[in-house]
C-alpha cells in the first residue's frame, strides 16, 4: 500500500502472538514465544540482555527479515495493523546503529528522497516531503548545519548522518518508527542531537515508536512504556518472551537489580569499579609529543610537487608517564584519534615530533613511527575503536598467542589474560562471532599480550554495556597501578574519573572549511 496521499500519518498498531524466529543456519531461534501488543501512537523502549532477540524483532517489524525461500523459520504471528510487515512496504521505517550505512546516496536531498521514490510518491510531493523532513530533524537550522539539498552526505558527522536517516524515514510517512541502537556509535552531543530530533518528529507525527538502546536515561523521558525481554528468550520453549512490561518508572524500580545485572545502563547507576591505589606523584617519562601537527592523510603528489596534508590539529604537546593516565578529550572532528594514533607510532607527524624516552625505546631509536611492527607492539600497544579491525586470526586463542609468538616471549601471560578478561570459555571461538563486549575484551587482551609499557585506547567504552564498562575500567586501573601508562581518547567522563591522571583537551579542528574542500577536490 504505497503512501501516496500526503495526509497525516496513521500510527501503526503492533501485535505479536506466540511469535518466534530462527535465522537460517542457526540451531536455536533468536526469539520465541513473544506475546506483545503495542497500541497506535505508543512509544516503547525495548530492553533486555544481548541475545534476547531485540534486533531480530525490529528487523521483522521493518519487513527486512529473511525470505520464504531460505530456511529460516517463523512461528506464531507478528502483524502491523493486522497485516504481515513484508506485505506493506513503507509502513515502518528502521534506523540502525552504524551511521555510515544509514546513508544511501551522495547528496543530502537525494538521500532523503530515496525512500519516497521507492514508494512511488509523485515527484512534487517527494520534494515537499524532503523539505519538511529536513526541517523536522533540524538539519536546516543554522545550528544544525544549515544544509543545502546538494550538500555531500560524506561530509556529515555521525549525529548528522543519523538525523539524515531519520529524515529519510519521515519522508516515507511511516506509521511506525523503529530505532535499533541509534546512538550507540555517537558522542554525547550526537546522542542528544538524535534523541531530540526523534522526540520532535514523533511529537509532530504521532507515529508509534519502538527503540532498542541500553542507555536508558537518554530515552526514559521520551517513552511511555518499557518492555523487558526475557534473557535468552530462545533457550527454552514455553517461557514467556516478555519479562516485564509497564510505565518506565514502574519497570525500572521492579527490575532494577535484574537490569543492572544484565549490564543495562539504568539511570543513576554507575557500576562499581576498582579504585586506583598507588598513583605516583613523579613518574618516569616514557613518551612525549612536542608541538605536534597531525593528519590522517599522507603527503599528496600534485604533478611533480609533494604537498603535505593540512593538519586537522596542530601545536599539541603532551607527556606520557609510567603508571599515569592521560585522557584526550575535545569536540567531534578535533583530531583526538588522529593525535592518539600519531602518538602511538601509527601515523607520521605532519610537523613536530613524537619521541620515546630511552626507558621505552630500549635502543631502537626515538621515533615510534620508524619502529618495525614487532618493535612497536612490545613498547606501545594500541586498541582501536572497532575491535574487528585488529583481528588477524580465526581463533580466540591464536589471536592472543599472535603477539607473544612473534616476539618469542610472553606466552605464559596469555592464560592469565584469558582468565582475567573472562575469555577462557571462548578460546576455540572465532573472534568475529563474539558479542560486542567479548570483542572489546578480546581486543584489549590481544594488545596486552605483547606486554607494552604504553597502552593507547581509542574510545574504549563506546557502545559498551555497563558490565563490560566496569570490567574494563577496573582492569585498566590495575594496569596503571602496575606501572603501565594508559592514554585514552574518550568522551566518557565517568571512565576518565576512574583512571585519574591528566586530561588533554583539544580545541576545535584547526582546519578550515576551505582546507577541507580543497583536500576533497584533489
Amino acid at each position: 500500500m504505497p503512501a501516496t496521499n500526503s495526509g497525516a500519518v496513521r500510527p501503526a498498531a503492533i501485535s505479536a502472538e506466540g511469535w518466534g524466529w530462527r535465522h537460517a543456519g542457526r540451531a536455536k531461534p533468536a526469539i520465541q514465544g513473544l506475546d506483545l501488543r503495542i497500541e497506535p501512537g505508543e512509544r516503547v523502549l525495548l530492553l533486555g540482555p544481548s541475545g534476547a532477540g531485540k534486533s531480530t524483532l525490529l528487523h521483522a517489524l521493518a519487513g527486512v527479515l529473511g525470505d520464504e525461500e531460505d530456511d529460516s523459520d517463523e512461528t506464531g504471528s507478528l502483524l502491523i495493523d493486522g497485516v504481515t510487515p513484508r506485505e506493506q512496504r513503507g509502513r515502518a521505517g528502521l534506523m540502525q546503529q552504524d551511521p555510515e550505512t544509514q546513508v544511501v546516496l551522495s547528496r543530502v536531498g537525494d538521500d532523503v528522497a530515496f525512500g519516497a521514490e521507492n514508494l512511488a510518491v509523485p515527484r512534487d510531493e517527494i520534494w515537499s516531503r524532503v523539505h519538511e523532513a529536513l526541517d523536522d530533524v533540524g538539519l536546516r537550522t543554522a545550528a544544525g548545519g544549515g544544509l543545502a539539498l546538494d550538500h555531500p552526505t560524506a561530509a556529515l558527522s555521525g549525529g548528522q548522518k543519523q538525523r539524515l536517516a531519520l529524515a529519510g524515514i519521515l519522508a516515507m510517512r511511516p506509521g511506525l518508527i523503529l530505532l535499533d541502537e541509534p546512538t550507540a556509535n555517537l558522542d554525547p552531543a550526537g546522542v542528544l542531537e538524535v534523541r531530540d530530533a526523534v522526540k520532535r518528529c514523533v511529537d509532530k507525527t504521532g507515529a508509534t515508536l519502538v527503540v532498542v538502546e541500553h542507555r536508558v536515561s537518554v530515552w526514559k523521558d521520551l517513552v511511555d512504556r518499557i518492555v523487558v525481554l526475557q534473557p535468552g528468550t530462545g533457550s527454552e520453549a514455553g517461557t514467556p518472551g516478555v519479562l516485564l512490561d509497564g510505565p518506565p518508572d514502574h519497570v525500572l524500580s521492579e527490575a532494577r537489580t535484574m537490569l543492572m545485572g544484565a549490564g543495562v545502563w539504568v539511570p543513576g547507576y554507575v557500576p562499581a569499579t576498582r579504585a586506583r591505589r598507588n598513583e605516583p606523584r613523579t613518574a618516569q617519562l616514557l613518551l612525549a609529543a612536542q608541538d605536534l601537527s597531525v593528519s590522517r592523510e599522507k603527503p599528496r603528489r600534485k604533478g611533480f610537487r609533494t604537498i603535505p596534508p593540512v593538519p586537522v590539529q596542530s601545536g599539541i604537546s603532551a607527556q606520557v608517564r609510567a603508571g599515569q593516565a592521560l585522557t584526550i578529550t575535545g569536540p567531534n572532528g578535533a583530531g583526538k584519534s588522529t593525535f592518539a594514533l600519531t602518538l602511538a607510532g601509527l601515523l607520521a607527524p605532519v610537523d613536530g615530533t613524537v619521541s620515546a624516552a630511552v626507558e621505552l625505546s630500549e635502543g631502537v631509536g626515538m621515533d615510534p613511527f620508524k619502529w618495525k611492527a614487532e618493535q612497536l607492539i612490545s613498547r606501545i600497544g594500541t586498541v582501536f575503536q572497532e575491535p574487528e579491525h585488529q583481528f588477524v586470526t580465526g581463533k580466540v586463542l591464536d589471536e592472543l598467542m599472535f603477539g607473544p609468538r612473534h616476539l618469542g616471549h610472553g606466552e605464559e601471560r596469555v592464560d592469565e589474560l584469558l582468565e582475567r578478561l573472562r575469555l577462557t570459555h571462548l578460546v576455540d571461538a572465532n573472534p568475529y562471532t563474539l558479542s560486542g563486549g567479548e570483542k572489546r575484551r578480546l581486543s584489549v587482551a590481544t594488545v596486552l599480550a605483547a606486554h607494552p609499557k604504553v597502552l593507547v585506547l581509542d574510545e574504549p567504552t563506546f557502545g559498551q554495556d555497563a558490565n563490560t564498562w566496569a570490567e574494563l575500567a577496573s582492569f585498566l586501573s590495575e594496569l596503571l597501578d602496575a606501572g603501565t601508562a594508559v592514554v585514552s581518547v574518550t568522551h566518557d567522563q565517568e571512565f576518565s574519573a576512574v583512571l585519574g591522571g591528566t586530561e588533554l583537551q583539544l580545541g576545535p579542528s584547526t582546519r578550515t572549511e576551505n582546507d577541507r574542500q580543497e583536500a576533497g577536490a584533489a
Partner: protein
Amino acid sequence: MRDALNLRGNQALLTRANPLAKFGSVFLISLVLALSIDWVSASTALVAELALFPLAGLTLRLLWQRAWPLIIAAAIGGWSTAIVAADSGAVLLDVGLWSISEGSLELGLGFMLRGLAIALPAILLMTCTDPTDLADALAQKAKLPHRFVLGSLAAMRLVGLMAEEWQTIGMARRARGVGSQGSPFQRLKATLGQSFGLLVQAVRRASRLAVTMEARGFGGGQRTWARESTYSLLDVWVVLGGLVIAAGAVLAAVGAGTWSFVWR
C-alpha cells in the same frame, strides 16, 4: 577520494548536459580514434578536446593533477615506440641498439597523441558528470533496470569508504605486530591478510546498507524519480560536437594522406 566524485562548485555548461548524450559523444570519438594509428587524426581530436576544457570546467592544472600518471604513461609509450619501431626514412638519432628515424618518430608521436586523445574525453566526461545524474539517466533514459543501477550507485559510495577503511585496517594490524617489512613473501602475506580484513568489513557494511535500502522500500516494482533525467537542446549540440570532432579527425587524416586502419 570520496569528494573527488563530487561536482560541487563546478558550474560549467557541460555539467547541465544529459550524461547519456555526453557518453555517446565520448564513445563516437574513441571509436574513430581506435580505428587508425596516424598522428593527424589524433592531434586534430586532441586540439578539439583541449578547446572543450572550459565548457567542462577543466583546467590544464586540474588535468595534470588528476591524470598525470596517464600523461606520463602516454609519453613513455610514445618514446619507446619511437625507439623500438622499425626504421623508415632518414635516421635522426642513432645510439647503438636504439635508433630514431622519421618513420619511427612519426609512429611514436602518433601513439602518444592517440593515447591522450582517447583518454581525454573520458576525463572530460568524469569532470562534468555527477554519478547520481548518470545513474538517473541510465535508469530513466537508457531503461536499464533500476535495482541494478541504484545498487551500483550505492555500492560506489562504499568504495570510497573502503579506501579509508584500508588505511585504518593497515594501522590496526601494525598495532598487532603485522608489519609491511620483511621479505617480499612476508609482505605479500601481510597484504593478503589486510585484504581479507577489508573484505570482511566490506561484506558487513554492504549487508547493513542492503537492509537500510530494503527498509526504505527499495526493490519494489514501481518507483518514481525525484530527479527527472531530461534531454535538452544542449544535448543535441553535445552529440553534434562529438560527431564533428570524430568526422573532423577522419577527414583531416584522409586529406593529409596519413589515415591508416589499425588492421592493415
